[in-house]
């Protein structure tokens, strides 16, 4: 079941998208698509089935907070867990993400173990693992 889950990785840096996708594959989640900002992500989320979103915050066009807000406002998408993976290390950003409904928060630079722990924890809480 967990292996079939489809992830959407949102980050404006292609290197980081590639790293996160590779890590997800290594920890047992090979199904992943990517988007370079919130606008593209939202379009993909509304036109295909995803089970998990891993998103950066600082992005052009639509940032991670705006994307999170749009996801939580959308009846069809609001159930989606959103894990923020970002360089923003300000406490107010972490609190804001939590208040807006983020499922988790990882600060860059991070390790494979951190990503694995957070993803598995969120999936376990949701009964998807």
């Amino acid at each position, binding site marked *: 079941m967990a292996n079939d889950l489809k992830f959407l990785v949102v980050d404006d840096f292609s290197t980081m998208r590639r790293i996160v996708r590779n*890590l997800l594959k290594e920890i047992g989640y090979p199904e992943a698509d990517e988007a370079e900002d919130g606008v593209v992500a939202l379009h993909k989320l509304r036109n295909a089935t995803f089970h998990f979103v891993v998103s950066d915050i600082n992005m052009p066009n639509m940032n991670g907070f705006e994307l999170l807000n749009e996801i939580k406002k959308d009846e069809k998408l609001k159930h989606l867990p959103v894990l923020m993976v970002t360089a923003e*290390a300000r406490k107010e950003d*972490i609190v804001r993400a939590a208040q807006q409904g983020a499922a988790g928060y*990882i600060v860059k630079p*991070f390790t494979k173990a951190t990503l694995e722990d957070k993803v598995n924890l969120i999936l376990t809480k949701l009964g998807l693992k």
Partner: protein
Amino acid sequence: MSTGIPLSSAATTADLSQDVHQRLGILTRQLHDSLQGLGLAEKVKTWAGELPDAKSRLTYIARLTGEAAEKVLNNVDQAKAHHDHIAAETRRIGELIVKDPVSAVAKGHVMNFIHDVEDATQQIDTNLTNIMMAQDFHDLTGQVISKVVTLAANIEAQLLQLLIITAPAEPVSKPVEASASPASPTTFVVHEHPVLQGPVVNPEGNPDVVKGQSEVDDLLASLGF
């Protein structure tokens, strides 16, 4: 004691020096008045505050790229050592099998070799993952570079505007073209958001930022997450 300069020449030098000082004084006063009149004095103070921040951000880039290079080279060294070991073992086991295949299996050489290969591939896989993770500096430094470039462009634009405003009335050989909008010369861009954001380059002593994932987890736990 003579300086070797004729009196008339010394007088001319003194006059010239006085004239230069006077002109510098006028220019300084003009610049000061312009900065004050255009409300730029505060801007200059802000730039003065932001430039050291930009400096520490560039230092952060140098540190991060240096660390990434070090991490990559260390992992390449380790992976090559594992690879060399397996290559050497492969040759050795190959020779044993050619010499006496039954003995090679019976004495456990082949099984030991298989375990060695398994261990080495796991180690090499970890090294490759580490090399991949080391590339995350591109994202972090990219964000920082973008902020510093924005700051530099902002200062350049403001200085260009100041140059246009304070340029002499008589035509110059190569007029400076303003790339800014045709708004009033006294209109200056005020950024809604601070110019420098992105990764925190100096978390030490700053209570508003977290220093690592464990602090993020603690903060979220305190919020009931």
